[in-house]
């Protein structure tokens, strides 16, 4: 699809619609006023609205009780059946930073078999407990089992030996406990991110945990808040899991919330920081270091490609490492931003801008955090570039694509034949094939001839050598050695008490003379071996070269197949557009005749024959059977129910879908966070 992207930003027109503010900001046309433009009265009102929202969204006592009951039920059963295991709850519910939605995160700590085996055991236990939709995800970095509690439908994840998450939960809880306003400020950010659909790690945005860390880091960096760094100057507490981790922190602090600040000012400061001072250019978000840490010190450089480099057509590619780096406070090599996809990254930046503009416009909290299924999946108008074009132009384009496709396919056939021939030449040279390749192997033809010559010489020599070796069995050095030994035995001084028999003497003498005859044959074998070696050396060189040529050919074939696939898709797209523009198909003249399956005599003719008492041929009988027999013949006169039923399922050829998204991102594949 050829869509003209913006020459300055690389955004396609649909991308410009999807991320308009970001596009304008990159173009330098977006004017953003500062914090002073936000009125005090608005902030006061906003703060009240936020407080109300947070209160309303908090988990009810019933919900909390239900969760606790489910947790205790699972803990009792699993710990009872898996000796020595401990089931812990972790995550936002435990750290008191939950919005009352989301799943229940549990972690089973157990020694012994591999996590996958343990997960299988847990699956059996959960099956016994009649849990629903049990699914084991054993290949993930942290293997988990997902299921739903049947009564409440609560989604639950159990991970195995994910102990670090327990410490993370405790740390976040300690931050939340420093002051109720800290917890509420975190909940405000999480609520906003959740409403705007940018807290879905599996959709390519950030996890709720990452947003929590960002909120805490922003408060640590804000001079008006000065949230303490609980890990600073803390006693070391080293734990050994898959690696060593220092999970020490100060659980108590004398932090006092600045009474001049409320939830609105805190949220405004958060958005302001990420709009006006995007920290990820130079820094890494790190609450361990009091907010940020320079990329250089962390040694987390921006990896290639950046999201903007992938515009407009390559947003499905992986984003470079550390594009929006957020350090886990304990697992220091873990970048929580690694889940970001290019579209997710751009959407997050767009949402920050949107929020800031909303604040400037004094939009109420309900508008700022309006539930919107922000799609990080770029939607394409498949025919966007074709719409303004005249049909003649489209037809010409179609013809061009057809020509190119035909050329590429022909090229592919040639490549394929050449690759096959090269493969056969290699097989022949290695002696795994009796005949040389028949077809040309392209630029390697000379080598093929060389190989054929060498191979035939080699085969001759090998055959000669094998025949001689088959006759004498032992090698030339062995012949010489045995000859000497035999002569020694014939002529050695003898003890009169140990004299060999005459027969033994005859045997030795005969063997000596035979070995003398074998000696020149052994030498001939040596000579043949030397010749074989001399031929094999260049032959192996040629084989090596052919192997390289085969690899090269395979690469060309792959490229050719890709190109052909691309052209076929383009052909299909153009043909679809032509069909759409031509409107629904008109019924062809002989459609009814064409649609008739039976090509034999007409049933009416057969009936006439029957009525006249003429004899029926096999074809006539077949026609009768096709139409359900004599009795049904009248009823099925081309307008049967069956026919209607058959046509019912057929789709209208003009019913084309012009939108398409990315695989695996439909609503069925989404999950609750």
């Amino acid at each position, binding site marked *: 699809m050829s869509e003209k992207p913006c020459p300055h930003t690389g955004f396609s027109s649909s991308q410009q619609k999807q991320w308009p503010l970001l596009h304008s900001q990159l173009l330098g046309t977006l004017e953003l006023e500062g914090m002073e433009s936000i009125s005090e009265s608005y902030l006061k009102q906003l703060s009240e609205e936020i407080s109300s929202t947070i209160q309303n969204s908090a988990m009810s006592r019933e919900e909390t009780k239900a969760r606790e009951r489910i947790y205790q039920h699972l803990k009792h059963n699993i710990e009872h059946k898996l000796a020595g295991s401990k089931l812990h709850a972790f995550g936002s519910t435990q750290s008191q930073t939950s919005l009352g939605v989301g799943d229940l995160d549990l972690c089973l700590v157990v020694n012994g078999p591999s996590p996958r085996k343990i997960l299988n055991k847990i699956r059996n236990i959960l099956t016994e407990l009649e849990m629903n939709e049990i699914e084991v995800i054993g290949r993930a970095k942290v293997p988990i089992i997902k299921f739903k509690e049947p009564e409440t439908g609560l989604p639950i994840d159990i991970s195995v030996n994910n102990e670090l998450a327990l410490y993370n939960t405790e740390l976040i809880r300690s931050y939340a406990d420093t002051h109720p306003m800290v917890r509420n400020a975190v909940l405000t950010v999480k609520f906003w991110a959740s409403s705007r659909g940018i807290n879905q790690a599996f959709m390519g945005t950030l996890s709720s945990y990452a947003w929590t860390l960002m909120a805490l880091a922003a408060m640590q960096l804000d001079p008006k808040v000065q949230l303490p760094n609980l890990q600073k100057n803390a006693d070391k507490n080293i734990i050994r899991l898959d690696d060593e981790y220092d999970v020490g922190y100060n659980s108590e602090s004398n932090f006092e919330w600045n009474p001049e600040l409320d939830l609105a000012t805190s949220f405004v400061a958060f958005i302001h920081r990420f709009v006006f001072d995007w920290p990820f250019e130079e820094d890494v978000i790190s609450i361990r270091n009091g907010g940020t840490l320079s990329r250089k010190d962390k040694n987390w450089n921006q990896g290639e490609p950046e999201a903007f480099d992938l515009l407009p057509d390559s947003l499905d590619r992986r984003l470079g490492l550390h594009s929006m780096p957020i350090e886990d406070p304990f697992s220091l090599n873990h970048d929580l931003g690694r889940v970001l996809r290019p579209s997710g990254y751009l959407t997050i930046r767009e949402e920050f801008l949107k929020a800031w503009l909303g604040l400037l416009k004094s939009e109420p909290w309900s508008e700022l955090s309006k539930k919107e299924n922000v799609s990080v999946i770029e939607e394409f108008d498949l025919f966007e570039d074709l719409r303004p074009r005249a049909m003649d132009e489209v037809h010409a384009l179609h013809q061009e694509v057809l020509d190119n496709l035909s050329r590429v396919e022909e090229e592919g056939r040639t490549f394929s034949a050449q690759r096959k021939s090269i493969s056969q030449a290699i097989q022949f040279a290695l002696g795994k094939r009796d005949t040389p390749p028949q077809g040309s192997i392209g630029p390697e033809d000379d080598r093929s001839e060389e190989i054929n010559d060498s191979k035939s010489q080699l085969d001759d020599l090998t055959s000669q050598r094998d025949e001689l*070796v088959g*006759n004498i069995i032992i090698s030339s050095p062995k012949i010489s050695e045995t000859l000497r030994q035999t*002569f020694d035995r*014939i002529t050695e001084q003898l003890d*009169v*008490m140990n004299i060999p028999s*005459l027969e033994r003497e005859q045997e030795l003498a005969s*063997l000596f003379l*035979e070995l003398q005859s074998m000696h020149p044959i052994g030498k001939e074998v040596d000579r043949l071996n030397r010749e074989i070696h001399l031929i094999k050396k260049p032959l192996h060189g040629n084989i090596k070269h052919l192997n390289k040529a085969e690899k090269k050919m395979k690469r060309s074939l792959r490229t050719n197949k890709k190109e052909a696939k691309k052209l076929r898709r383009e052909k299909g797209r153009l043909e679809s557009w032509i069909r759409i523009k031509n409107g629904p198909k008109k019924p062809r003249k002989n459609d009814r005749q064409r649609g008739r399956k039976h090509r034999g005599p007409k049933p009416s003719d057969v009936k006439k024959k029957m009525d006249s008492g003429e004899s029926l041929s096999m074809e006539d009988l077949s026609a009768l059977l096709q139409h359900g027999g004599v009795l049904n013949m009248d009823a099925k006169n081309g307008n049967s129910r069956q026919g209607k039923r058959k046509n019912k399922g057929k789709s209208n050829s003009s019913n084309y879908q012009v939108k398409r998204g990315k695989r695996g991102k439909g609503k069925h594949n989404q999950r609750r966070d």
Partner: protein
Amino acid sequence: MLEVSPEFLVRAILHRRQRLAEMIPKQLESRKDEKEIAEALARDAKQRRDEIKTNLDEFSKQLKKLDEGSPQHEKMLVERDTFIQEAQKSEHEYLENELFRRRSDSRTKRLTHALNDCERSIEYWEGVLDNGFEELLVDATRVKQGGPSSYALSKGAKPERRLKK
């Protein structure tokens, strides 16, 4: 080794045999003398052993007739121990002499065989020198003509079969 002709080889064998044939008779004579001595020694030792054994048997019969614990019985018991020691010594001597006799006999026989073998061998190899080496050259000729060696034959690896492989 490749220069060694069949004739040279046969002459070397013959030479060795002839030397042996010269050496053996002298050794055979001395072995025969040794055998005679050994036979006499063994015979004497056997006779002595048998006599002592007979005396010991008679002595034992007399001892049985006496009352146990009587002074004569006690005296004869001491004498019987001396008798037994003497009988054991004579048995040992006999066995040693008999072993010597057997060995001498075996050596003499072996030398006699060797002498016979040498004579037969000399006769054979002289016959080869006179009549030709065809019999000795059967395997060598087959190999020269492109046939299988005795190694190939004993291995059962027929060249045709190998080529087919």
